[in-house]
């Protein structure tokens, strides 16, 4: 999966800045998407392209349980969030609705990847290639459980392995 990086070099990006509360009344996902990251970065919509990845620090998606947050980002074309760590509700929401991939990275990847870099994520090898800089980093593998929900295509499609 290839895409370019939009980097927010900070911790604790909360779901209120990803999609401010006033838009939780919006039922139409395309319209919801027009307000994504409005609380954080007014230039987000001029930057974001289909297939992009967001890179950020610790505790990404903390705060409110609003599933509108991964929905709004995914409807802007964002395919994955790479972060040093995730808040759990955002993490599950991203996977449950198969909206985007929450990928935990280490400090080397965080420091090494810059805004605009072209990245290739290979989930089967747990590898992140920085095509722009010709570097390779490890991603933290999904837990077996989360990996299965992702592979199934979301919570409603998941069934436990049959013996």
């Amino acid at each position, binding site marked *: 999966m290839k895409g370019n990086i939009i980097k927010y*070099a*900070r*911790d*604790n990006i*909360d779901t*209120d*800045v990803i999609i*401010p*509360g*006033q838009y*939780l*009344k*919006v*039922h139409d996902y395309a319209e919801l998407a027009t307000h994504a990251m409005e*609380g*954080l970065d007014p230039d987000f919509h001029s930057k974001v392209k289909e297939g992009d990845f967001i890179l950020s*620090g*610790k*505790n990404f998606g*903390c*705060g*409110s*349980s*609003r*599933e509108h947050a991964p929905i709004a980002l995914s409807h802007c074309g964002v395919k994955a969030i790479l972060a040093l*760590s995730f*808040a*759990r*509700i955002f993490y*599950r*929401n991203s996977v*449950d*609705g198969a909206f985007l991939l929450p990928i935990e990275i280490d400090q080397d990847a965080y420091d090494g990847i810059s805004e605009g870099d072209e990245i290739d994520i290979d989930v089967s090898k747990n590898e992140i290639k920085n095509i722009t800089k010709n570097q390779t980093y490890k991603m933290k593998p999904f*837990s*077996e*459980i*989360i990996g*299965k*929900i992702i592979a199934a295509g*979301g*919570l*409603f499609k*998941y069934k*436990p*392995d049959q013996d």
Partner: protein
Amino acid sequence: MGKTLFEKIWESHIVVTKQNEPDLIYIDRHLVHEVTSPQAFDGLRMNNRKVRRPDLTIATMDHNVPTSDRSLPILDQTSAVQIKTLETNCKDFGIKLFDINSPNQGIVHVIGPQLGITLPGSTIVCGDSHTSTHGAFGALALGIGTSEVEHVLASQTLWLEKPKTFEVRVEGKRSNPHAVTAKDIILSIIKNIGTAGGTGTVIEYRGEGINDLSMDERMTICNMSIEGGARAGLIAPDQKTFDYLQDREYTPKNYESLVDSWKDTLKTDSDATFDKQFILDINDIAPQVSWGTNPGMTCDVDEPIPSPDEYSNGDANQKKGAEKALEYMDLKSGTMIEDIKIDRVFIGSCTNARLEDLIEASKIIQGQKVASSVNAMVVPGSQMVKRQAEEMGLDKIFIDANFEWREAGCSMCLGMNPDILSPGERCASTSNRNFEGRQGNGGRTHLVSPVMAAAAAINGHFVDVRKLDLN
């Protein structure tokens, strides 16, 4: 080896368990509100599914209801549609709804316990992160997203990864419990463990400092577990818990025998171990005031605002976060908290809008007036809290002091109803999140206890309530 309270509740709710698969957990109570449920009901309709247990599902409207005169129409059309949609969904699927005119309407996490819907040892979910509040009763209460809401509606179960366990032990006694409150205890905990300190865990709050708390205070503690990153917060039930739930409207008929069984089982065994531990001594803690844009950015009321270097301990992102927070909050390092002037005061939210919160705040303001530069409001957590407060005459105390006395709802906690801050306005708020724009675009939030908020309203700036005569 013994088991923790969390492990006991978890294991007693497993429907399916297999190695390297999530556990399928049975859900005893599902609380629903207008904001995170519409897409879930749409999903049910699309797949021709029913609500499996409408009798275990309870709904109310709280997030975007206006808190002004309830006889007037809702002016915001998108809010009106969302409220109407919940009414239709509850009618179509046979779910009990406490609507905007119900005497039981209120913030979902305030009404659950008040109505006896929240029970010890049960599993409770709601499409709201502050569901952790119900953990004060020894329930495993999890905030979930809308996909999971749909899954619970359809199946009364959830696929969950078993969280780790985290003991937060609160030791000692507060010398002045009217000035140093449960809010100050939980803000101190979050300041110490950090906003991600509890990630992937269920916290059990234990120790003398927790046992001494009332049920209203315990709810304040558990409510903000999510602000420390935890999946849930728990407090083992005791006689206070059992007394609180006695004779509530929805308390089960066989309550006495339930209490007998809970007394034996709903506690952490003495030889159980936790994955993680943090100890807070509360003998000397001060009232807390947040200065930044997450609840971990908090200091004592008699301290200056720290510098980004002091706050960050050498972590580059933390330092940058503190710099950005100070810029957003228009504050400077070194400024004493008591010198910060405020424009608005909000006493409300699922954290601090229960009866005891209003009683304590009213003692501060009795016979005084809100500073002329301040606009202050009280939003009871439920219509029941409002009625109880009015029976005690608290409404008169607040109104005489020039506070607005409102109808129940989430109100100014989250900026999605008419109660919002204007850009640049600074608010002393009893709510739970001081994120950028949380209370309205450009608004600046300082998280405090109800007594700290009340004292700030009277003085126009923060004051150390330990200096006041509060007994």
